């Protein structure tokens, strides 16, 4: 294993064109497998069905956000309001989720609607004002946090119905429900990206916005879609989180946008747009989850976890740079 790896890297140094591209594309998968092998050697608690199930459940919220922001980053944008959208949608859903108040569709429906509206607002301001997405979503991030506090009056919204709490805490066929939501979202997002016109337009805009516009793509409309999808997925994440901790927290999701963006970038989504896949993002999110779980199992303090995570993000971006230079 070690020899072949060394040989692989040596080879890439000699003939950089093809192999580095391959490392860029498969490096993250390789790193992920390597990390899992390493952790299973270090602790017998890692590679058990129960532990792996927990990792995927814990990862689901970040992965949902990361799928959404992958669409956004692919168009060359960014969405910093993810964490605030999680809080707003979670608090809104919780407000309608008290036992015997409304049927389950109401809190879910209203929560999702809140996310769609918030996302659409992001898209609207970005496409109309031509202000950088970084600035616009920085603004809506603050607005969202304020809204969550206003709606909840600064206090957690608790006493939620059992049916609502099933979303984040229940099992279907023995599988935790958040994992099922994660898999469905992954399938749908991959399909959108690979098989639909919207997906092709998204790549085109990220690759070269001028050219995309010249070839007749309605760039603004595509961007509206992208931010709205990001809002919708943030709402799904918000509802899953609220249900998982059985309370709507106005201060939930602080910093979630950064983990989601990190997952997308570690997974090979180019920060300048145009290239990246949902599978990569999923692996990126899993990688973050595995590191955090593994270091907890090894009883390493969370301070070191942050150092490791930062190093991995930088590593991923460096790989991305190598990858693009070789093209």
């Amino acid at each position, binding site marked *: 294993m070690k020899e072949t790896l060394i040989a692989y890297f040596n080879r890439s140094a000699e003939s950089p064109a093809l192999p580095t591209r391959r490392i860029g594309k498969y490096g993250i998968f390789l790193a992920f497998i390597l990390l899992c092998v390493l952790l299973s050697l270090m*602790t017998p608690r890692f590679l058990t069905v*129960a532990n792996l199930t927990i990792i995927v459940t*814990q990862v689901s919220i970040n992965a949902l956000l990361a799928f959404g922001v992958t669409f956004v980053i692919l168009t060359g944008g960014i969405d910093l309001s993810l964490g605030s959208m999680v809080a707003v949608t979670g608090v809104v859903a919780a407000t309608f989720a008290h036992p015997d108040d409304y049927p389950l569709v109401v809190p879910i429906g209203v929560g999702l609607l809140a996310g769609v509206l918030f996302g659409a607002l992001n898209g609207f301001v970005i496409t109309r004002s031509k202000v950088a997405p970084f600035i616009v979503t920085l603004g809506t991030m603050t607005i969202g946090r*304020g809204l969550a*506090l*206003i709606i909840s009056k*600064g206090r957690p919204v608790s006493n939620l119905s059992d049916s609502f709490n099933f979303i984040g805490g229940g099992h279907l066929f023995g599988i935790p429900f958040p994992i099922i939501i994660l898999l469905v979202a992954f399938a749908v997002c991959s399909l959108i990206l690979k098989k639909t016109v919207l997906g092709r337009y998204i790549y085109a805009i990220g690759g070269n916005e001028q050219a995309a516009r010249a070839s007749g793509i309605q760039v603004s409309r595509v961007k509206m879609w992208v931010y709205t999808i990001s809002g919708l997925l943030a709402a799904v994440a918000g509802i899953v989180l609220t249900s998982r*901790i059985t*309370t709507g927290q106005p*201060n939930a999701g602080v910093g979630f946008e950064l983990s989601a963006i990190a997952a997308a970038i570690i997974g090979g989504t180019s920060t300048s747009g145009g290239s990246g896949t949902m599978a990569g993002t999923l692996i990126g999110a899993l990688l973050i989850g595995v590191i955090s779980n593994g270091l907890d199992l090894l009883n390493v303090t969370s301070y070191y976890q942050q150092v490791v995570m930062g190093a991995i993000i930088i590593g991923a971006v460096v790989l991305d740079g190598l990858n693009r230079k070789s093209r």
Partner: protein
Amino acid sequence: MKRTSFSLIQASILLLGLHLAGCNQSGGDGADGQDKIVVGVSMLSMQNEFIVNVADEIEKKADEMGVELITVDAERSPLKQIEQVESFIAQDVDVIIMNPCEVEASSPAVTKALAAKVPIINVNSATSSSPTAFVGSDDVESGRIAMEYIAKRLGGKGNVIMIHGYMGQAAQLQREQGAREVLKKYPGLKLIAHQSGEWDRAKAMSLTENWIQSYGSNIQAVFAHNDEMGMGAVKALSDAGMKDKVVVVSVDAIPDALQAVQKGTLDATVFQNAEQQGSKAIETAIKIVKGQPYDAQTLVPFQLVTKENVAQYMK
């Protein structure tokens, strides 16, 4: 209720204003306070339920006493808090009530207020430089009460896990200190793992899930530094079907936790009296301004809440 959200909006607008201005200009018309006493209040975080309760009580008492309040939210940033106190000094308030963000980093705010001859009262948690007066609870005591309860329930023998608050905050440091004092007393009690859950329910839940994987049935008790994290631990343990074998204790007695104690999912919480902290703080502030005798240190005691006495804490 209405008033809370309104003052929150006010606070955020004020903060945003400070932000945009990038510096601490004195707020326009300032205080014409010959007749009416003006109190500047800087709170640690209006996103924390307990702190909101303290702030609400200060506001209620201030209304009763006919005192004008300027309440701002430091959003957990000691730097912002210092700027807010500077701005209070510039506005020439009569007295300042501060709910410090951090032991060391919020200290300059105290020093600055005292240098400007504005009395300052720390409420809820301490700073390293001593203010005119302190109103709060001795957090070491809450850690001690919680761990004593665990020791009693386990008969002085067993493995304990501790979930810290934000590392370095007064409440975290003191609750840990109190807990460790008790641990030393019972050599049979072993602290097998401890880590920061950053006061957050979801984080503490993930942490506990992971610990269940590594320690399983070797965990006999969990001490979480606040109720939010305690509830997260309870959820993780219940999901794993282990809750009836593990004792969970946390601090604050928020409504959620009281309900859980009543249901028997959370074994105990330690009640910190937000109402009394708030009212004593503003009372002390007024006494100082009026030149009346006051207590330089008012300690509001903690109380252990279990299933037996939970009813009296529920509203």
